[in-house]
């Protein structure tokens, strides 16, 4: 670790949300009571579709939105009634929100100036941060003279220059083009390793979530669908919503009925042998569907609708029992009969969800 790394290093603080709620009036509840514990130094990505309340959640932690109920603890200290400046959080905004009339240097040190830090110390601090972010040559420019990526770095710089215990990100990469977004993602991951602040990162981009997060918090209509590591979220989704939200293309979901010995699709084909009865939703990821026969698993017939060749692999879309299933196959591995496919759903890769609630039924396919 070199000198700069030690210069900017925060004392990470844990965040506890104890039953916090947000509602604008009796009818519009944005966030029903929620309990979450974010560990100190952890990188949490809050993921969800637009309108799920993820930005509201972030702003409540920041102190930009009032909580309607419940408590927020940062580093064990109750903060829900404090002004933003007393919470020890810094934030990176979606549109950067840089002050257009201040130079890059002034933008980054404004919070320190407000806090009354002596000028010499400010200069030292901003120099360290600028060096870290590759902005040293730009300190005297105005934000208007910078590229999108540079502005993004300034926005990050102004957040970390305060050495906050908590760093909040409000969809900070959504304005960048694809290549820059990838680069910044890598930089952010690296930055987090070096600074170590507890980070909360709001996004609707699952790739950002999967690559950056220690844990992902998936929100749907203000409720937590699942809060777990990326790996667990991908391989054991807790609900149909999570299963469909993560993965590209998303998990196939098919309605099935069990008669106590087998699960049948709506057209009567048997997809799995399991001693359950009732209505369910069956989930399987496109890459988990096999095309060649393997002993033990039942095979179903489907007809090909169209295919997309993506170079590394192909996606086949096939009609199966009133639904369309997507199958990922190695590129060039063409099925013998171009129109009629035989699909095998390996039992170990199946996910079963309650038809009514959409919640996962864990252990449904374990050997009995």
């Amino acid at each position: 670790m070199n000198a700069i790394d030690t210069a900017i290093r925060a004392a990470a603080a844990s965040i506890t949300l104890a039953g916090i709620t947000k509602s604008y009036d009796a009818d519009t509840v944005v966030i029903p009571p929620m309990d979450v514990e974010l560990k100190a130094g952890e990188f949490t990505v809050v993921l969800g579709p637009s309108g799920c309340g993820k930005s509201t959640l972030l702003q409540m932690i920041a102190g930009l939105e009032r909580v309607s109920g419940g408590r927020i603890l940062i580093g064990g200290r109750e903060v829900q009634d404090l002004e933003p400046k007393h919470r020890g959080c810094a934030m990176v905004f979606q549109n950067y929100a840089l002050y257009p009339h201040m130079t890059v240097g002034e933008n980054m040190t404004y919070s320190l100036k407000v806090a009354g830090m002596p000028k010499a110390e400010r200069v030292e601090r901003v120099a360290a941060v600028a060096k870290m972010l590759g902005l040293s040559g730009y300190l005297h420019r105005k934000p208007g003279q910078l590229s999108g990526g540079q502005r993004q770095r300034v926005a990050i710089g102004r957040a970390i220059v305060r050495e906050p215990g908590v760093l909040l990100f409000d969809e900070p990469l959504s304005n960048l083009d694809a290549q820059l977004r990838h680069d910044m993602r890598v930089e952010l991951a690296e930055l987090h390793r070096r600074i170590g602040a507890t980070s909360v990162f709001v996004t609707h981009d699952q790739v950002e979530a999967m690559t950056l997060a220690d844990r992902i918090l998936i929100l749907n209509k203000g409720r937590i669908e699942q809060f777990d590591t990326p790996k667990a979220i991908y391989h054991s989704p807790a609900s149909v919503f999570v299963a469909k939200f993560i993965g590209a293309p998303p998990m196939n979901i098919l309605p099935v009925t069990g008669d106590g010995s087998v699960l049948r699709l709506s057209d009567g084909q048997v997809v799995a042998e399991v001693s359950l009865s009732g209505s369910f939703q069956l989930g399987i990821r496109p890459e988990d569907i096999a095309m060649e026969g393997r002993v033990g698993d039942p095979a179903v017939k489907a007809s090909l609708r169209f295919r997309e060749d993506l170079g590394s692999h192909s996606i086949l879309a096939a009609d199966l029992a009133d639904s369309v299933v997507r199958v990922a196959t190695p590129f060039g591995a063409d099925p013998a009969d171009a129109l009629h496919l035989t699909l095998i759903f390996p039992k170990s890769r199946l996910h079963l969800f309650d038809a009514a609630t959409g919640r996962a039924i864990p252990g449904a396919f374990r050997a009995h």
Partner: protein
Amino acid sequence: MSSDSSLFSNRWLPLILVAPFMLLVVLFFYVPIFQAFYWSFFLERPFGGGSEFIGFDNFSRVLADPEFWEAGWRTLVFMVIASSLAVVVPLILAVAADRKIRLSLPARNVLVWPKGVAGASIGVIFAFIFNPFVGILAPLNGMFPGIWAPGLDGTDAFITLIAAHVWGGIPFNFVILLAGLRSIPYTMYQAAAMDGAGPWRRIFDVQLPLIMPQLFLTLVLEFTESVTSAFALIDTITHGGPGGATTLLVYKIYTDGFNGYDLSGASTQTAILMVFVVILTAAQFVFLGRRVNYER
């Protein structure tokens, strides 16, 4: 802002910030308005001679006065003619100046100049230019004696007033309408051209419909403006004459109040005029405003 709860929540500071301005507004706007209505129910004697409640007597006196009705009618006529011209003339100029032609830039510059010339100044100037003996139309009078006599003929005096009013109204309306035209995306013209509409056609099918919000706004403001700005012109060009032919309500209120010392009568007419203006503005919003809001 999406939600209020992140705003500053100080209790006294906003009050202190708003107080000085609101004090002026209350004192010099709301109190006079209140007083106009209040006095219209009293017989108010000038020079602090006391007052006496007389109910609707002032109103019946004013409404029974044929001069009031004539002045009201003239106000209406002036308002309709002058304000339509004061919108249509700048509109034509704005459509012309919106084209990429050599004269466009100098025109955009020159057409805002009247903003710097007071209504009274232009009144003095127009009184001279349209003077029947030495003015621009004097030679015409030489050929046909008496054809141009704003000092004798009410219509001639009215025309002079309207010409001066339109002159002074050009900058604001021109700038607003041109800004509206310039905010129309270029692709809109390209799309219309692809649909086969030529430049003349596009004026009526693309430009005019898309600047309806600006047209509406200039018209609303121009109505009020024509009721009030006429005073400086009348006082410098015609003095309400000849024979009261250009005595609009604002001018009548002024002469009744400041020359005739009829405070009750002037207040009553003020109250009536204010109600008229408010109703007119509201009516415009109800009948026109609803149709012109385009999401772009």
